[in-house]
């Protein structure tokens, strides 16, 4: 038997908006000026939310919190492309996606105070609760996609996770199943290059994460995760593909975790300030502002006004969040099951 070449593959990175704020017109997705401005506002809102959450944690007004700083384009750009009925299975570092999808901001903050009631997702949003056990939400998305197809619903199912999750068995099992069943799914990986203290090269020997999809029989693409247009465009294409029945897509958003893993972490123990500075220069918001300055009349003054508006929204949300009464002790038992069993009912009575 002669040796035969059975497969070759290529992996592409999509970039639309460069660091100077210039776009590649051929690759620029269709977006109105109003939509682009809205994306900008949502990225500012995400930044403001994040800065405030970290500050509140430092003041003891919030529990441990995982910052999203630097990942605003990956989150806003992807969520902005979704339609109302689409399902989202997040991990725990996609608050920018939640804000883009219209999650009530006081409720989003409330979760990070340690109040589980905040996980009661409003009925108009098909978002799953935050998932702290890394990667374990990914198979749920597979099930929702199977169910959607069984019901003939024209929805797409999106799951978010980070680079660390790609080392987990659930990532592999879910990707494999999505490929086998050609499911209408988007696997959106925010590759922020650090899983607490372990850098990407400690996580995988693969040159890219995107290429992992090839092993499961579907397309993987890397996008510049700090380029909101590239993220939006890749998401948009993958959604169209999913809805047309052509199966899943893996999108690796190459970005960077500017802040610590959580407010309980000190990234200075394991990575250099020079590396962080390099990525600060690639800030996704700065890049969009440079674009808007050239195209939509953005200037420092307008930027300041937009930031002040975002801060105002977050201020109001913090006030509202802090006016929520704490849960009663008996709420420990609420929603444990549809009906409490006799022992639980007895425990509740005595509590």
């Amino acid at each position, binding site marked *: 038997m002669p040796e035969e070449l059975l497969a070759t593959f290529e992996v592409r990175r999509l970039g639309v908006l460069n660091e100077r704020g210039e776009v590649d017109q051929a690759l620029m997705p269709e977006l109105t000026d109003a939509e682009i401005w809205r994306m900008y506002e949502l990225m500012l809102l995400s930044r403001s939310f994040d800065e405030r959450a970290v500050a509140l944690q430092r003041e003891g007004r919030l529990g441990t919190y995982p910052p999203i700083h630097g990942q605003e384009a990956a989150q806003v750009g992807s969520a902005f492309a979704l339609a109302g009925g689409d399902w989202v*299975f997040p991990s725990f570092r996609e608050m920018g996606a939640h804000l883009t999808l219209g999650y009530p901001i006081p409720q989003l903050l409330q979760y990070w105070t340690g109040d589980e009631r905040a*996980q009661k997702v409003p009925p108009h949003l098909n978002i799953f609760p935050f998932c702290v056990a890394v990667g374990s939400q990914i198979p749920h998305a597979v*099930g929702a996609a199977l*169910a959607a197809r*069984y019901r003939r619903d024209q929805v797409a199912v999106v799951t978010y996770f980070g680079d660390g999750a790609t080392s987990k068995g659930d990532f592999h099992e879910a990707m494999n199943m999505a490929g086998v069943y050609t499911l209408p799914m988007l696997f959106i990986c925010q590759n922020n290059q650090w899983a607490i203290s372990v850098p990407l090269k400690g996580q995988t020997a693969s040159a890219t994460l995107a290429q992992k999809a090839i092993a499961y029989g579907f397309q993987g693409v890397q996008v510049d995760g700090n380029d909101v247009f590239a993220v939006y465009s890749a998401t948009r294409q993958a959604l169209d593909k999913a809805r047309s029945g052509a199966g899943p897509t893996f999108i690796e958003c190459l970005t960077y975790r500017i802040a610590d893993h959580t407010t309980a972490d000190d990234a200075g123990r394991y990575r250099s300030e020079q590396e962080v500075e390099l990525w600060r220069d690639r800030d996704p918001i700065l890049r969009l502002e440079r674009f808007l300055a050239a195209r939509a009349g953005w200037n420092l003054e307008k930027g300041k006004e937009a930031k002040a508006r975002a801060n105002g929204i977050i201020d109001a949300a913090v006030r509202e969040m802090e006016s929520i009464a704490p849960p009663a002790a008996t709420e420990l038992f609420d929603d444990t099951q*549809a009906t409490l069993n006799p022992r639980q009912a007895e425990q509740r009575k005595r509590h």
Partner: protein
Amino acid sequence: MAHLNMVQAINQALGDEMARDDRVLLLGEDVGRDGGVFRVTEGLQERFGVERVLDTPLSESAIMGAAIGMAAYGLRPVPEIQFMGFTYSAFEQLFAHAARLRSRSRGRYSCPLVVRTPYGGGIKAPELHEESTEAIYCQIPGLKVVVPSGPYSAKGLLLAALRDPDPVLFLEPTRLYRLLREEVPEGDYVLELGRARVARSGAAVTVIAWGSMLERVLKSVENYDAEVVDLLTLNPFDAETVLASVKKTGRAVIVHEAAKTCGFGAEIAATLAEEAMLYLRAPILRVTAPDVPVPLAKLIDQYLPASERIQAALDEVLQY
């Protein structure tokens, strides 16, 4: 009324419920074309199609995880894990997600699924095919654990589980799959979850057992004035029925094929100590497997509680 074995009774329950409720669908390894390795799902893919009886990749965590997503979407999936020893791969999904989804989403999502898995020893199968680690799953608030002991209870309990609004682990005693035949009504009937049954009346001692051990217990007590309580549901277990019986007989022997330490017998014994201590005339005894891993076929008879050991325990408590 038909004379059915447990495989047939479970198959009938699944088929009837799938015909009644289009939200019910099955997924698992070899459950479709092959009808399951024990043929429990035989004929169901032909009858309901490949969309409702899904042959999955060999992927227990994703089977369980996908079932959770389906349930949250509004379906009533029935994942099969081929043997209880393989549920360990799916444990995180069951523990961290299925059991907690209603609670952690404060009721926005629920997880009405029934995990079916064969359990228990004595079938000459390879390693990890004969586990009986039910107690682990009873430590998970939000998850019900149901164990039928024969064809009649299997059908009635499975129909109840399939209509339960929360996740249920349904343990099918492998050794009994084809060992027993019982009269099983063809129509619809449910046995309420959380209710034990008195399988045999007696006055001198209460023997508490479930699933695979029940048949052995009933044979072992033939010459004793023993009452046998078949738990049927382990979580929540029917303390009321157990306590009423033990208060009457004053003696309790618990039989299970799982290892002794932290087996479910410990929970029953503790409940009896808390709530029936003053009615007891003898120490509560447990007849269990030793605290060792489940052996392969050559030693399984030395591992599982034998009739002689059950009878020795009865003789001991009856001395008081």
